[in-house]
């Protein structure tokens, strides 16, 4: 009986990963443009980076403000390796260069990990911040490694490759990234199923108890940190190959903060959470940034909203519905969502308009020029756009207040239905 159960989950796991691999392989056929390939490549890199970050945050309970150190150093090491390959000094094929970045990340992960993980919580967070700022500030002082202001560049059309690809074309780079993304994600998933992965969870939940079952929490954290740094280094290496240039920005506070926020928004409690976060935030970054200055503000608002009201992230929002789907009682809840959608959309539109108008006023060179929103052109000087935006915002908010019981009532009745079904069976 138990063997059957085990093979059923094994089969569904294989099916899940298999379909993910298939999807990843087929995506560029659907989306051929240069922009889409760049977007997909960037998503692939960020997925590895965010998953590696969650090895620390979600699985071991370590909040790091300096994870980009391993990403960046991995990128720089890979770039130097690439240049060595092209100079004929290092006989490595391009496809394996991300591993070089990973190994670089691993070494720094061991060193920094060991000194910083004796305590978790705030001390660890601060040390990670300090180390991050140290490395970022050192980057200008060591130009031979970091390349100073211009950074280090290289040619990804390397002399030695394993496959017949030349890696000049974006789609070839995409497949390289896709391969490493699937491999890294798969390995990181398997890691969660190992003794180390389990004990890391225990150390996260209760480090005191973990030591009273025989584990040195410091060593557990150091190993997790090292492995996380390894994968972050791979992501950095892919970044270097993809963009053919690395500058000191990639070790700094901005990518560190970015991966923190995207992992948290995606959800730290589930393995796929960071994947969601990486996809969403990268999409926002690359697609919205052209459209509006305000995307950074929206990003920040989304982050704070998650912290205040959905600390488990988007993944927890989705998984929350699992018992409803299993019990086949989603219908009522879906109807409630439909009812709420109206007020929420109106509220969003109102707020967005106000924000966009304000940005236009403060950031554009000539505020008197017309701005366009949702395809409509208007002047911020006139009264109409202000009135409309305010009306939408206030109206949406009032409608929201009036209807907010709808969702909680639907959930309540769905929960009751499930209870009834359980007691009946």
């Amino acid at each position: 009986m138990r063997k059957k159960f085990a093979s059923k989950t094994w089969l569904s796991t294989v099916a899940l990963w298999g379909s993910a691999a298939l999807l990843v392989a087929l995506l560029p056929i659907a989306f051929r443009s240069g922009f889409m390939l760049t977007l997909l490549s960037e998503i692939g890199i960020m997925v590895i980076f965010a998953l590696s970050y969650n090895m620390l945050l979600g699985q071991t309970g370590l909040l790091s403000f300096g994870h980009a150190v391993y990403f960046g150093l991995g990128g720089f090491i890979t770039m130097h390796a690439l240049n060595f390959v092209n100079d004929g000094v290092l006989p490595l094929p391009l496809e394996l260069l991300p591993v070089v970045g990973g190994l670089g990340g691993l070494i720094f992960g061991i060193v920094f990990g060991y000194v910083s993980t004796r305590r978790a919580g705030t001390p660890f967070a601060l040390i990670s911040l300090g180390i991050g700022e140290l490395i970022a500030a050192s980057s200008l002082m060591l130009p031979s490694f970091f390349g100073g202001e211009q950074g280090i560049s290289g040619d990804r059309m390397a002399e030695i490759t394993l496959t017949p690809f030349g890696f000049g074309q974006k789609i070839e780079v995409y497949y390289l990234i896709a391969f490493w993304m699937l491999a890294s994600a798969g390995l990181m998933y398997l890691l969660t199923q190992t003794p180390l992965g389990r004990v890391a969870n225990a150390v996260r939940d209760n480090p005191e108890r973990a030591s009273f079952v025989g584990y040195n929490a410091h060593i557990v954290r150091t190993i997790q940190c090292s492995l996380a740094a390894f994968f972050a280094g791979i992501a950095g290496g892919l970044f270097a190959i993809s963009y053919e240039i690395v500058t000191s920005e990639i070790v700094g506070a901005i990518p560190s903060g970015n991966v923190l926020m995207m992992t948290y928004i995606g959800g730290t409690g589930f393995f796929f959470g960071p994947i969601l976060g990486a996809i969403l935030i990268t999409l926002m970054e690359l697609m919205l940034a052209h459209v509006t200055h305000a995307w950074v503000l929206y990003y920040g608002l989304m982050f704070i909203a998650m912290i205040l009201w959905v600390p488990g992230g988007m993944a927890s929002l989705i998984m929350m519905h699992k018992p409803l789907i299993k019990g086949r009682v989603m219908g009522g809840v879906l109807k409630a969502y439909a009812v709420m959608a109206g007020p929420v959309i109106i509220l969003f539109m109102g707020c967005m308009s106000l924000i966009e108008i304000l940005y236009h006023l403060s950031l554009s060179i000539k505020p008197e020029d017309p701005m366009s929103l949702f395809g409509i052109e208007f002047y911020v000087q006139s009264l109409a756009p202000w009135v409309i935006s305010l009306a939408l915002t206030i109206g949406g908010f009032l409608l929201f207040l009036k209807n907010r019981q709808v969702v909680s009532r639907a959930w309540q009745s769905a929960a009751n239905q499930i209870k009834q079904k359980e007691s009946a069976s």
Partner: protein
Amino acid sequence: MKGNDMVEYIVFSLLNGLLYGMLLFMLSSGLTLIFSMMGVLNFAHASFYMLGAYFAFQISAWVGFWPALIVAPLLIGVLGALVERFGLRTVHKYGHVAELLFTVGLAFLIEEAVILIWGRNAMDYRVPELLDVPLLTLWATDFSMYRGFMLLVAVCMFVALFLVLTRTRIGLIIQAALTHPQGVSTLGHNVPAVFMLVFGGGCALAGMAGVIGGNYFLTDPGMARMLGPIVFVVVVVGGMGSLTGAFVASLLLGTIQTFAVGLEVSLTDLFALFGASPDFESGILKDLFRIQISHTGPILPYVFMVLMLIFRPKGLMGTRET
């Protein structure tokens, strides 16, 4: 450097370092109080400093500097109290990590809001004309009256803080919470109200630092990002929970950084003093030897912080580790 130049350099570095240190203390004292009382490391603390500068700039533009000096910190204090009441309190039940992340998000948002309202360029927030005169002139350089004013405000604030903490009832409660936060709540004091007061007060202090520092240094959207980490260093090095430690660390860090910035000496120069000239072809060693002390200014605080956290997490004078 010639003898006279050397003395001048030392004196001015000391004065400037002292000033910078006092500013750091205004910031770190609020942070220490908040951290000790509530266990929250307020990542957005330097953001309230920035808001203080911007509010003061705006109010100065409307009614002048002197009203701004009083009104801006009060506004910031109220804002801080609201943030505590509606933000931190909601997140408190999710644990320390969530509280820390909330303040990170807050810092992010405040920076964006500032850009939204005032734009990306630095604001022309000026020293009031009344004080823009030299107080004393040492050697060839002026020491402006405004610097003296800044010192005065900082000292007054320090004295006021000291009096509140040692002579008032609320101050005694806060002192107790600095070292034994759990004990305070079991004694039956209205802890949420005290939290709101302390958070608001700490932010008001930061805001005040912004009011007097913003027109002296630069007022632009990046000021929080630049100063924030240094304030953490001060709190860590001085010792979590120790106001005196924060004071000592502020002055120490302020003076060391100010001194370092003027010393254009590198290891190569040092070796040259002894007649040796190490020659590296290229690479990291060569870079290391050419680093001038003046370049290390930005990283010195972090070196201190990391070393301190590794070897002596209690800091110089702290009584608690977390």
